[in-house]
């Protein structure tokens, strides 16, 4: 961490906060224009997501994957890479994790660990492929990871539709072996131990990025590749390795979801978890530890919106609009600064106005 003036630190908090506020505002206008009441929707979200212990735990459960995909994006970003491929890496992790979970009988804890490790390796390899293409052919990672997303999602779809298909009705596999399933804490919500694993992963990744030689080289590569080369860093290897780490985190997310929530591989099980990660990371300002908060916040939105949809039949899709708006506003800090100036100007006008009135009163006989 660098020592910066208070003003710039404050800005680091204010910009994401204002971005969120603006996103909520614009989203409210959209909700309004579709004929719903934004106030009741937002109120419904909060009650739905945190109204009682059960919904709160469900929110944390929804946050788990979001924290990890956000972490995945942030790791690559630290190395100056834009990994839009968490979605595909998550699918690859889920697919290979499921294969181990379905067909490799192992004792309990070892089985679970193996599933997670294999998923991390699969997600990592899938992302490293994009890194390799960048290093070898100068193919931009945004393009390649998007392509690889489609391939991974369809690969999963093929498996559950044909070779792994377990039921006539639904494209899904058998239930994983019992030893590979991570049980929930209670039947009331989906809350399960993977939430804590995700928090541990955030901390591990934070330590890797900020307190190891590998992380140092990664950050140097991300900020000035030429200085890295001059300083003896194998920049190409760092690009591939950073992508691999980023993908491994997404792969873990995939396996957690399979092991604790779905208990089996399902066609199209990810509802855009990977892309939501971009918003989670953006709201955390590209930093690693704040991802925990932004991930939980998006968990609130998601879980809350599902509740709202169940009760009032307002489609929960507007959450995706909200995510997109957050990215837009965070990505455009100048817009936020202009908005903050505007607000400040407004406040000044108001105080000037009231000040004037006070003066007038004073001069009045």
């Amino acid at each position, binding site marked *: 961490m660098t020592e910066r003036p208070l003003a710039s630190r404050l800005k680091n908090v204010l910009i994401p906060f204002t971005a969120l506020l603006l996103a909520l505002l614009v989203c409210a206008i959209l909700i309004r224009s579709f004929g719903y009441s934004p106030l009741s929707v937002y109120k419904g979200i909060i009650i739905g997501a945190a109204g009682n212990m059960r919904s709160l735990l469900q929110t944390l459960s929804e946050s788990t994957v979001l924290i990890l995909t956000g972490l995945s994006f942030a790791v690559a970003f630290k190395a100056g890479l834009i990994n839009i491929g968490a979605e595909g890496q998550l699918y690859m992790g889920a697919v290979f994790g499921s294969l181990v979970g379905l067909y490799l009988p192992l004792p309990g804890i070892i089985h679970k660990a193996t599933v997670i490790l294999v998923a991390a390796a699969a997600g990592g390899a899938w992302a490293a492929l994009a890194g390799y293409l960048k290093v070898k052919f100068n193919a931009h990672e945004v393009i390649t990871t998007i392509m690889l997303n489609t391939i991974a999602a369809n690969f999963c779809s093929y498996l559950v539709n044909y070779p792994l298909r377990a039921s006539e009705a639904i494209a899904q596999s058998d239930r994983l072996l019992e030893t590979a399933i991570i049980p929930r804490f209670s039947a009331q919500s989906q809350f399960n131990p993977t939430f804590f694993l995700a928090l541990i992963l955030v901390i591990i990744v934070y330590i890797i990025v900020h307190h190891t030689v590998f992380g140092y080289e990664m950050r140097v590569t991300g900020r*000035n590749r030429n200085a890295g080369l*001059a300083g*003896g860093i194998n920049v190409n290897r760092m690009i591939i390795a950073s992508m691999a780490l980023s993908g491994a985190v997404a792969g873990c997310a995939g396996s957690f979801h399979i092991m604790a929530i779905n208990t089996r591989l399902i066609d199209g099980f990810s509802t855009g978890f990977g892309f939501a990660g971009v918003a989670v990371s953006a709201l955390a300002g590209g930093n690693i530890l704040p991802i925990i908060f932004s991930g939980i916040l998006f968990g609130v939105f998601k879980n809350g919106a599902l509740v709202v949809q169940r009760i009032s039949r307002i489609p929960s899709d507007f959450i995706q609009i909200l995510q997109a708006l957050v990215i837009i506003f965070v990505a455009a800090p100048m817009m936020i600064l202009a908005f903050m100036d505007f607000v400040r100007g407004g406040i000044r006008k108001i105080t000037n106005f009231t000040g004037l009135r006070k003066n007038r009163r004073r001069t009045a006989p």
Partner: protein
Amino acid sequence: MIEIRGLCKAFGVIQALKDVNLRINQASVRVLLGENGAGKSTLMKVLYGMYAPDQGELFFDGRNTVLRNSHQAIDLGIGMVHQHFMLVEEFSGYENVVLGFEPKKSGQLDRGRMISEVNRLKHESGIDIDLSRRTGAMTVGERQKVEILKLLHRKSDILILDEPTAVLTPNETHDLFAMIRILKDQGKGVVLITHKLHEALEIADEITVLRDGVVVSDGIDPEGKSREDLAKMMVGRDVALYSRKPSPKVGEPLFVCEDITTESSGDCALKSIHFSVHEGEILGIAGVDGNGQRELVEAIAGLRETAVRRVFVQNQPVPAGTPDILKSGIAFVFEDRNFNGLIENMSVNENAILGYHRESSLKRGFLLSQKKTRERAKRLIKEYQVRTPSDQTSVGDLSGGNQQKILIARALGAGPSIAVISQPTRGVDIGAMEYIHESIQLFRDLGNAILLISADLDEVKSLSDRILIIHEGEIVVEGKPTELSDTEIGLYMTGSHPD
């Protein structure tokens, strides 16, 4: 004629200019001299209408005038060439010259008149340049000529040139000065901002020295003044500029380059460069920028592909590639600190370990110890007098001189026996320059070998124990700095061989 009286300008709590008085006369060259941050550019920006002064008056031909913006300044005949050129790269030279003041025929650009008008200006001012080419394809020197023609086209009487020589080769500087003299003879007033002392002495009719926002001396006649006199005014104390200190003891050859040859790929090809640097010796390589200096350093480091690369330290071949070459005891200061020297938005301490970050002395277990990293940075900051609020300050917030000191500290402080140092004081204040020169000499006096590459001839001559001159990728002559005259060196640098 312009006169400024009692000018004050503050940015927040920083008083950039304090009670400045200045007169700019027609048909005269006024040099504004000062360290970075002395207020030169601020003063000129006030004059050009870009900043509103807090206090003070501006008299234009005796009339009190308030400038609201630079358009007004242009209308009054004030023109400015900014340090970073304001040209549209996709346009031709002609188009850039007339931009904003185009000759028109029925609402469209009148190309015929544009070309004849600009050619007439070219002829009058003696500026020789082919303007039909795309500006983006021009050299820096040519672009500057386009900028100056632009001012002439706008009929500017006062020309402000902000550090015009910073990016020029010696020959281009020479051309520029010739141009300035012609303009002066035509009655133009020229204000030239610089921190290069010999240039001030060469071109100025009058010199004004600014220090910390205050005019410390005004109307200095360059006649009979030395660089040391000016430096003293700029810095406020005696400065030992370019003082020669020969090596106490030159030992055995330590760093031997038998042959470096590269193939050209759009840049300068090196033709079997060979030299050896001895213990306790500074070997200087002088030459006009772009004659293979950059390529040579990159080839030594192994950052560039070479056809032949036979480099030895104590008869051991030097590995290519930075991690290994740094370990073999050769440290580098590359020529462009922003390109590959520093990571601007990382802290001083993280920058101070780059290249040496794998050393076990910085580790705690398998972690990179923040404590040890900071301790090392603090030691370097202290030893090399880096002026920074803290070791956690972002490097981008430091002045160029202090950034450069970090590079020197990082390289020399890592305990190498050989240092390859390229352009050690480019864009650096006099104070920092003096200190960097001392550090380099001190490092040599300990018995280490230094290969010094610089486009600043004075620097090479005063620091080096032996000089090589490079021209178009070839070493053309070797000699002692005391044996070669400036004229000889100048001729060798431009490729002609004096007899």
